[in-house]
C-alpha cells in the first residue's frame, strides 16, 4: 500500500508527499496519534497528493503519516440500511458513543450480528449477471433482494445456494462460478464506490407514471413521475424543507432516502422524532421503516457534504435494483455545491461564475442523470425519483446552481418570497413552475387511462385560468377596480379560487396535509365546474364577496375527512351557494 506524510494544512485541505501510486478520489487515512481521519484525494501532482479531509483537521501536524486504501469512497450495501440514521460517510450515528461527534468516530453501517430470514430465489445451474436476484430477506416489511454484486463482470453460474433460514449478513449465501471457472462466494453484503452509478440493469425507460406526493400543487398541477427529477429553489424561509418533508411523509414510494446536506440539525431531529410515530399511508407501518436518513448538517465536516449526496444516491440505486420505487430527497444541493466551491478555492483553481468550480454544471448534470426508471434484467421495473432543493444566494435564481439544475431536472417548483410573505403555503409559484412530464405522450396516455380521459388538457386549462387571472389582476392594479369590466374581476377571482382551494394546502393540518389523487381529481373537477359557469354580478365588489364564500366552503371541505359527514355538509352548502348564482345565470345564456 502507498504511504505518505503530510506537508501542508489549510483548513480541511492537506497535501501529502507520497511514496507510491495514488488514484484520483482514492481514500486515505491520516494517522493522527490514536485517531484516524478519512480523506479523499482530489488532485495529484507528481508525488504530491491533495486530499480533502472529511473531519476537523484541528491538531493535525506536518509529518503525520498517511496510509492509502486503494479504493474510492464506498458504501456497504445489504439488509439493515432501512431505518438507519447515517452521517455523510455512512457511519451509523446511533452506534456512536457520547453526546458529541468526535474526530475520527467510525462506526459500522450495518448490523453484523442480526439474523435475517433468507429465502433463495435462484437455483443451482442458473446463469446470472451483476444485479440479478439470488435470494431475498425480510427487512422491515420489504423483500430485500440479495443480488449478484454489481462489481461482477460477465456471466456466472450458480453452483450452490443456501437454504431458507436465518443468517447473518456476512454468512455465505451462494457460490457462483465465473465463465473461466473461478468460484466466488456471495454474502448478503457488497460494496460500491459512491461516485459511480450502478448500471446493472437492462435499460432505462421514459418515465410515464405519476408518483403521488399528496400535494395538490404537485400532483395535479406539475406532477412528478416515478423515476422523474425535480428541483425546488427558493429564498430562505419560503418552505423548501417543509415541502420536502411533506413529500417524504406522504409520497407513494416504497423507499425514501432523505439526505440532509449542510442544513439544520433540528430539522433532522424533527424527522427522527416524527417518523417513528407516523404511519405510512400505504402500508400502515411506521414511516421510519421505509426511510433512511443521511445526515450531514451544516456544522458537520464540509467535505462530507459532497459525499453525503452520493452516498444517498447509491443507496437509492441499490433498492431500485430490487424492483422498488425509491424516492430520494436532498436538502440542499446548494450546500454541496458550496462545499465544492470551498475546495476549489483552496486548490486555487481558476474560478467559474460566482467562484464556483467550472465543472459544476457537469457535476450536477451527472448526478441528476442517476435518477430514472429502469427495466431490470428480469423485466421487472424499479425507479429512483430525485427531488433536490436549492438555496440561491440572495434568493436570486440567476446563479450557477439553479441554472445548472434547470438544464437537467424535468420538474421545477419555484418558491416565491411574496407568496410566503402572504402565508400562501406551499409558496410554489404555480405559473413559473413547470413539469415537463405533462408534455410526455406516455404520461398523457397513462393518465387518460388511470385518472380520467383528457386529464392533461384539464390541467392545462386550469393553468390558463390562472394565467388569465394574473393578467386580469395586473390590469385591475394598473387601471383601477372601477375602470375595468366586471369580467376582469371574474377572471381574477377564478384564479384566486384555484389558488386558495387547490394550490394552497396546510401541511400542518392532519387532514389537509395529504390529498390522495382520487380526492384531488374530485376537487379539481369540482372547482373547474365552478369556473365554467357564467355568472352575473352587478358590480365588482359582489364578485369578490361571492367568491370568498365559495372559497370558504371549499376550504372547509379540504379540512374535513374525505366523504365524511362534515365534508358532505360543506359540499351541500357549496351547491346551494352555487344554485343561488346559476338560478340567475340561465337568463344570460
Amino acid at each position, binding site marked *: 500500500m502507498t504511504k505518505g506524510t503530510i506537508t501542508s*494544512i489549510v483548513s480541511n485541505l492537506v497535501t501529502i508527499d507520497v511514496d507510491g501510486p495514488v488514484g484520483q478520489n482514492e481514500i486515505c487515512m491520516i494517522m493522527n496519534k490514536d485517531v484516524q481521519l478519512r480523506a479523499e484525494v482530489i488532485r495529484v501532482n507528481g508525488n504530491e497528493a491533495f486530499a480533502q479531509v472529511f473531519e476537523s483537521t484541528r*491538531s493535525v501536524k506536518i509529518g503525520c503519516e498517511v496510509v492509502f486504501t486503494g479504493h474510492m469512497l464506498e458504501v456497504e450495501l445489504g439488509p439493515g440500511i432501512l431505518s438507519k440514521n447515517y452521517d455523510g460517510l455512512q457511519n451509523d*450515528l446511533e452506534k456512536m458513543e457520547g453526546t458529541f461527534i468526535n474526530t475520527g468516530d467510525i462506526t459500522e453501517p450495518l448490523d453484523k450480528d442480526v439474523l435475517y430470514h433468507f429465502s433463495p430465489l435462484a437455483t443451482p445451474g442458473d446463469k446470472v449477471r451483476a444485479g440479478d436476484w439470488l435470494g431475498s430477506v425480510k427487512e422491515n416489511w420489504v423483500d430485500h433482494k440479495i443480488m449478484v454484486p454489481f462489481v461482477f463482470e460477465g456471466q456466472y453460474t450458480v453452483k450452490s445456494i443456501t437454504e431458507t433460514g436465518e443468517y447473518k449478513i456476512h454468512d455465505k449465501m451462494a457460490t457462483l462460478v465465473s465463465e473461466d471457472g473461478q468460484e466466488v462466494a456471495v454474502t448478503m453484503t457488497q460494496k460500491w464506490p459512491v461516485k459511480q452509478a450502478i448500471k446493472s440493469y437492462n435499460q432505462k425507460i421514459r418515465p410515464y407514471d405519476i408518483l403521488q406526493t399528496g400535494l395538490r400543487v404537485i400532483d395535479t398541477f406539475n406532477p412528478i413521475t416515478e423515476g422523474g427529477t425535480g428541483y425546488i429553489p427558493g429564498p430562505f424561509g419560503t418552505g423548501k424543507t417543509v415541502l420536502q418533508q411533506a413529500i417524504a411523509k406522504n409520497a407513494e414510494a416504497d423507499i425514501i432516502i432523505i439526505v440532509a446536506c449542510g442544513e439544520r440539525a433540528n430539522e433532522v431531529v424533527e424527522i427522527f422524532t416524527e417518523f417513528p410515530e407516523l404511519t405510512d399511508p400505504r402500508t400502515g407501518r411506521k414511516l421510519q421503516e421505509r426511510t433512511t436518513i443521511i445526515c450531514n448538517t451544516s456544522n458537520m465536516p464540509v467535505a462530507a457534504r459532497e459525499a453525503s449526496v452520493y452516498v444517498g444516491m447509491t443507496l437509492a440505486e441499490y433498492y431500485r435494483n430490487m424492483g422498488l420505487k425509491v424516492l430520494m430527497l436532498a436538502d440542499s444541493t446548494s*450546500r454541496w455545491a458550496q462545499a465544492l466551491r470551498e475546495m476549489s478555492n483552496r486548490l486555487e483553481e481558476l474560478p467559474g461564475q460566482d467562484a464556483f468550480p467550472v465543472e459544476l454544471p457537469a457535476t450536477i448534470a451527472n448526478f441528476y442523470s442517476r435518477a430514472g426508471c429502469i427495466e431490470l434484467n428480469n423485466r421487472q421495473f424499479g425507479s429512483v425519483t430525485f427531488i433536490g432543493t436549492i438555496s440561491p444566494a*440572495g434568493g436570486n435564481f440567476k446563479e450557477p446552481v439553479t441554472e445548472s439544475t434547470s438544464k437537467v431536472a424535468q420538474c421545477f417548483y419555484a418558491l416565491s418570497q411574496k407568496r410566503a410573505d402572504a*402565508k400562501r403555503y406551499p409558496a410554489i409559484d404555480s405559473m413559473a413552475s413547470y413539469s415537463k412530464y405533462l408534455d410526455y405522450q406516455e404520461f398523457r396516455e397513462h393518465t387518460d387511462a388511470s385518472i380520467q380521459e383528457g386529464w392533461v388538457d384539464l390541467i392545462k386549462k386550469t393553468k390558463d385560468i390562472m394565467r388569465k387571472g394574473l393578467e386580469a389582476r395586473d390590469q385591475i392594479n394598473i387601471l*383601477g377596480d372601477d375602470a375595468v369590466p366586471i369580467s376582469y374581476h371574474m377572471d381574477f377571482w377564478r384564479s384566486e379560487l384555484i389558488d386558495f382551494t387547490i394550490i394552497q394546502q396546510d401541511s*400542518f393540518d392532519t387532514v389537509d396535509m395529504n390529498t390522495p389523487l382520487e380526492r384531488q381529481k374530485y376537487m379539481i373537477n369540482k372547482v373547474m365546474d365552478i369556473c365554467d359557469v357564467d355568472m352575473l354580478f352587478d358590480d365588482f365588489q359582489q364578485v369578490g364577496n361571492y367568491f370568498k364564500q365559495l372559497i*370558504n366552503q371549499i376550504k372547509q371541505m379540504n379540512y374535513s375527512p374525505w366523504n365524511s359527514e362534515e365534508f358532505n355538509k360543506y359540499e351541500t352548502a357549496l351547491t346551494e351557494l352555487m344554485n343561488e348564482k346559476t338560478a340567475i345565470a340561465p337568463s344570460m345564456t
Partner: protein
Amino acid sequence: MKTKAFQRIYTELSAITRATCVLKAEGVTYEELAWVDGRPAQAIKVVGDLVTLQVFPGTEGISTNAEVVFSGHPPQLKVGELLSGRFLNAYGDPMDEGPEIEGEARAIGGPAVNPIQRSKPSALLATGIAGIDLNNTLVTGQKIPFFADPGQPYNNLLAEVAMRAEADKIILGGMGLSNDDYLYFKNTFTQAGVLDKIVCFINTSENPPLERLLIPEMACTAAEYFANDKQMKVLVLLTDMTLYADALAIVANKMDQIPSKDAMPGSLYSDLAKTYEKAVQFAHGGSITIMAVTTLNEGDITHAIPDNTGYITEGQLFLKQDTDIGKVIIDPFRSLSRLKQNVIGKKTREDHPQVMNTLVRLYADAKEAKTKQENGFDLNEYDERCLHFALEYSERLLAIDINISIDEMLDIGWELMQKFFEKYELNIKEALINTYWKKSEDSQLAAEEV
C-alpha cells in the same frame, strides 16, 4: 487564556500582513494557539515548516524579530461555576475587578453534537411581545437573529427579551459593541439583580476587530458547559454578528482567498453555521438558545451576511419602523420562526396557528391596498377595512413595546377580525369560529351595554 510559556520559542518572522504573520516553525498543530510578542495568535495555515498565524490584536508594531511562543493546544476557555457574574474579554480573561478564572480548560469551537443525541426543541420561550410570541413563537434550543438597521434599538430589545425569557444562565457575546451599549447591558443586568445568572464576553468597538472571531466560540463553550454539564437552560446573546462576519472577511482577504458574494469569504455559510448550530435542546433538559443581532445595510437582506444567516438560523425577527404608527414593529412578512409549529396550537391555544396566519394574510391585503392608494387609485370597501385593520393590528400587536400573554394576543386578534371582517373572509376552520368568534361577540356586546 494565558498559559505558561513552556514551549518552543521562535524569533524570526518572514512575513507580516495587517492581520497575519508567517514564520518557520516545527511541530505546530493546526489551529494551535500561539503568542506573537505576547499577543494571542492562531495557526491557520501550515505549509511545510512555514506557519501562518492570525494575530488577534492585529500586527501593528510587530517586528520581524518578535518572540513567538506556541502553546501546544487550540484556544481554550476555563469553564466552571466561577464564570457566573463575570465580564471577560475575547480571550476569556477578566475585564472586571474579579480574580483570574479558575476551572477546567476546554478547547473552544469543539465538536458538533451528534444529531441523534438532540431532542426536538418544543418548550415555549415567551417574551410578552406579540410580534414574537404570536407571530413568531420561540422555543428553547432555537437560534434566531434580529435583523435590524443600525439605527434601531436592537440591543435594548435584546436585553429586554433576555430579562423576560426564562433562562438559568444568560451569556452575552458582544462583538464591536459600542461602549455605551456595553454599559447599557451591564446596567440592565445589575439593576435586574441577575448578575449571578450572566456571563459576558465583550469585544467593544475600541478593541481589535479580529478578537471578535473568538467571541462566539467563547460564549458557546461557556454555554455548552452550563447546558450540558450542568443541564441548565442557557440563553446566548450575540451582537453584532455582522461585525463578526466582517472580521472573517478581513482574515480571508489577508490570506488571498477568492472572495465570493459581497466580498465575503466562500466559507461564510459554514463559518456562521458552526456558531449557530451550537443551539441545542438536550434530552436531559439543558438547552442552548441563541438570539443574535445581524445589522443590515439599508434594509438589504439579500446581502451575503443576512442571506447566509437566514439560511442557517431558525427564522429571523425583522425590525422595521412603521411610519403609520410611529413605532418600531416586528415585520410580520419578513419575520419567521421555523420552530413555532412545535408549540403553537399544541402548547398554546388551539386557535393560535389559524388566527396568526389569518391576521398576517389580512395585513398583506392591507399592504396591497396601500400600494393601490399610493398609486392613486380609489379604494374599495374591502381595502378600506383592511387599512383600518392594519393600523390597529400594528399598534396593538406588532409594536415591540407591549408585554402581554399569548391568550390576550389571541383575544385581541379575534376582536380585530370581528371588528373589520366577516366570518367567511377568514378561511378559518368553522369549529374554531364557533368557539371563539361568538366569545368576542359577547364581550363586545358586553362592552356596548356598559
